[in-house]
C-alpha cells in the first residue's frame, strides 16, 4: 500500500479495443504496471504488441472512433486520468505528461516554423507573454543542441536527428513529470540514435523526469531503463527490474526475445528466432495468447488465461508454468 502512494503512475487492468469493420481489435488487454518518480520503465515487444496504444491510452489520445479504452484505470499523481474531464486532461498533456513519437519526419507540422511549435506548448501551459514563450523555446532549442539562427526554419529544412531534437524540446519544454518516448530512435541512423539517446538521458537527469521508453531494442533498455515490461499481444507478460530480467528471464516469450538477439561472442547456431507470427488481434487465441508459438506449451495453456504471478521480489510473470512452482522455472534458467 505504501508503495502505491509513492508511485507516479499506476496503470491497472487497462484494456483498449478498436472497433473495426474487420472485427474488434483487442489492442491492450488487462495491462498493469507502475512507475516511481524519476524511474524509467522500458516497454518491449514486437510491432503490434500494443506498446504505442498503451502509450496513447495513458495520454488518452486513442483515436475514437474506432478505438476506446474499455476498462481499467490510469492513476497519475494519485488521480485516475480516466475519470477527469477532457479540459483537465489537456492540462496534463504536454505539461505533466508529454510524449515523443517514433517518426520525427512526420511528427512536426510542416507548415509552422519549429520555434513556434515549441513556443506553442509553453504558451499553453505557462503564464506569460508570447515573447517569454519564444525566449523559453529558444533556451530549449539550445538545450537540445540546435543553433538559434535556425529557429525560424521549417521542419523540412532539418535532418531526421535534428527534428527529433526539436520533438524532444517540445516534450520537455514544460518540464513534465512523465515523458513517454515511443521508439524515439528507431527511425534514425545508428550514430544519430546514440546522440539522441545520450541527449535524452542527460535531459532526463536534468529535469528529473520519469520516463516510459517504448522500444523493441533490448540494447536501449539495458542502456537507459530501470524496469522492463515485456508486452505480447496487448499483455504485459513479464515485468521486472532490469537486472533481474536480463539475468533471469522467466516467460518463454522473453526467453525467445533474448534468444533472437545475435550475440557476437556465441556461435551463430544458438540464434533461435521465435517461430510464427503475432496472433490476429481481432481473433486472439484461447487461453494464453502465446501458446501457439510457445515451445513449452501445455494442454492447459490452450484453455486457461494465465494471471500475473510474482515469482520473486518485484519480478512478475504471466505464465501458467510459473504459477505452478519455481522448479520448472529453474530449468530454463540456463537458456538466458
Amino acid at each position, binding site marked *: 500500500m505504501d508503495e502505491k502512494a509513492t508511485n507516479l503512475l499506476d496503470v491497472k487492468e487497462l484494456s483498449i479495443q478498436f472497433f473495426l*469493420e474487420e472485427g474488434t481489435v483487442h489492442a491492450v488487454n488487462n495491462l498493469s504496471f507502475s512507475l516511481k518518480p524519476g524511474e524509467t520503465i522500458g516497454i518491449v515487444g514486437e510491432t503490434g504488441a500494443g506498446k504505442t*496504444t498503451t502509450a496513447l491510452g495513458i495520454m488518452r489520445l486513442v*483515436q475514437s472512433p474506432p478505438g476506446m479504452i*474499455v476498462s481499467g484505470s490510469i492513476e497519475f499523481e494519485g488521480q485516475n486520468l480516466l475519470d477527469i474531464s477532457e479540459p483537465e486532461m489537456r492540462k496534463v498533456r504536454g505539461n505533466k505528461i508529454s510524449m515523443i513519437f517514433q517518426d520525427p519526419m512526420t511528427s512536426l507540422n510542416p507548415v509552422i516554423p519549429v520555434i513556434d511549435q515549441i513556443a506553442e506548448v509553453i504558451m499553453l501551459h505557462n503564464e506569460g507573454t508570447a515573447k517569454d514563450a519564444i525566449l523559453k523555446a529558444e533556451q530549449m532549442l539550445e538545450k537540445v543542441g540546435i543553433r538559434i539562427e535556425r529557429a525560424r526554419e521549417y521542419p523540412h529544412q532539418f535532418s531526421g536527428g535534428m527534428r527529433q531534437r526539436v520533438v524532444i524540446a517540445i516534450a520537455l519544454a514544460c518540464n513534465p513529470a512523465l515523458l513517454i518516448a515511443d521508439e524515439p530512435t528507431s527511425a534514425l541512423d545508428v550514430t544519430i540514435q546514440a546522440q539522441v539517446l545520450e541527449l535524452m538521458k542527460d535531459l532526463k537527469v536534468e529535469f528529473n523526469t520519469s520516463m516510459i521508453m517504448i522500444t523493441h531494442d533490448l540494447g536501449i533498455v539495458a542502456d537507459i531503463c530501470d524496469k522492463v515490461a515485456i508486452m505480447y499481444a496487448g499483455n504485459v507478460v513479464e515485468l521486472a527490474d532490469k537486472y533481474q530480467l536480463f539475468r533471469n528471464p522467466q516467460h518463454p516469450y522473453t526467453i525467445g526475445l533474448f534468444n533472437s538477439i545475435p550475440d557476437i561472442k556465441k556461435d551463430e547456431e544458438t540464434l533461435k528466432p521465435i517461430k510464427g507470427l503475432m496472433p490476429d488481434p481481432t481473433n486472439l487465441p484461447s487461453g494464453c495468447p502465446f501458446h501457439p508459438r510457445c515451445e513449452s506449451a501445455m494442454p492447459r495453456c490452450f484453455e486457461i488465461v494465465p494471471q500475473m504471478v510474482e515469482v520473486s521480489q518485484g519480478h512478475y510473470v504471466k505464465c501458467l508454468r510459473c504459477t505452478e512452482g519455481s522448479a520448472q522455472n529453474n530449468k530454463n534458467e540456463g537458456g538466458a
Partner: protein
Amino acid sequence: MDNNTQNATVPKTKKPKKQSRFREVWKRYKRSPLAIAGLFIISCIILLALSAPFIAPSVDGMPGYNLQDWGNVRQFPSSEHIFGTDHLGRDVFSRIAHGAGISLRVGIVVITIGITFGITLGSIAGFYGGYIDNVFMRIIDIFLAIPNILLAIAIVAALEPGLTPVMIAVGIGAIPIYARTVRAQVLTYREQEFVEAARAAGASDFRIIVRHILPNCMAPVIVEASMGMAGAILAAAGLSFIGLGIEPPLPEWGAMLSEGRIWMLAGYWHLTVFPGLMIALIIFALNMIGDGLRDALDPKLRSGFSKRHFERLKVQAAQKIQEQSQATTVTKEGVA
C-alpha cells in the same frame, strides 16, 4: 504510417486470386448503403430502358416515344399520363423510358472512346517515358486548358448537331483524363519486379503492357469510368440542352429538358422537372457507385463506416468483456 489503428492491426493481405478478389471487393462495396442505393438506381434505370418497348410499344411503325396526340398537348401529370404529356401530346413517361437507353448508350459510348484511346495513349506514354511522355503530357496540358464543355461544343460545331457528334465530342474530351490516370499507373508498375521478370523472359513490349501492366492498372480506371460515365451523361445532356445533341424525335433527356424549357415559365413544370430529375438521378447513382467502388477497391481511401455500426460493435464488445471477466473470475477460482 504510424496510425494507431494500423499500429494495432495489420489486415491480412490475401492471395490475389481473381474470384476471391472480386468477392472481397464486393464484400467491401456492399457495406456502403449509398453505393448499394446507386447500384439499385442504375439497375432500375437499366430495367426501365429494357422494358421501354413494352411500357410504350410502337404503333403502326411509329415508335412508342413519338406517339403524338395534338389534341392532348402539355397535360399535367394524371393517372393516365403519370408524368403528363409534352408539347406534341406525347406521353412524357414513355419518352423518359425510351430515353433511359439513350442516356446509358451515350455514357457507354463515351467511356468506351475515352478508355480505349486513354489506355492506349496513357500506357504508351507511361511505358516508354522520355520524349514521348513529355510530348504526351504537354498535349494533355493543352487539352486540359480548354474547359471540357467548350471543347465539346467546338468539336460538335466542326461536325454537325446530333447525338453521334455529341458522343464523339464528349468522348474526345474524356480521353485526357483516362490517359493521365493510366499513365500514372503504368509509371508505378513499369519498374516493378514482375515486369522485369517478364522482360527477362523475352516478352514483347506489347505483351508486357497488355498482359502484365494493364491488369494492375484497372482499379483506378474502373473508378474513373463510373464517375466518367456520370460526367459524360452530364456533358451530353448539357450539349443537348443548348441544342447540339437534339435529334428529333429521339427522347434524349437533355433534349427533352431543352424542349420543355420554353414552357417552364408558362407553368408547365412537368416538362422540365422529370427529365432533369432523371438526369440527376442517373448521375447521382453513377457517382455513388464510383464512390463505393473506389472505397472497395482501395481500402486506404475508405470514406468510413457508419456511426451506428460503430456503436453496435461497442455494445457487443462491452458484453464480451463482461463475459470474459466473469470467465476469468471462474478460472481464477478454479486455479485457486
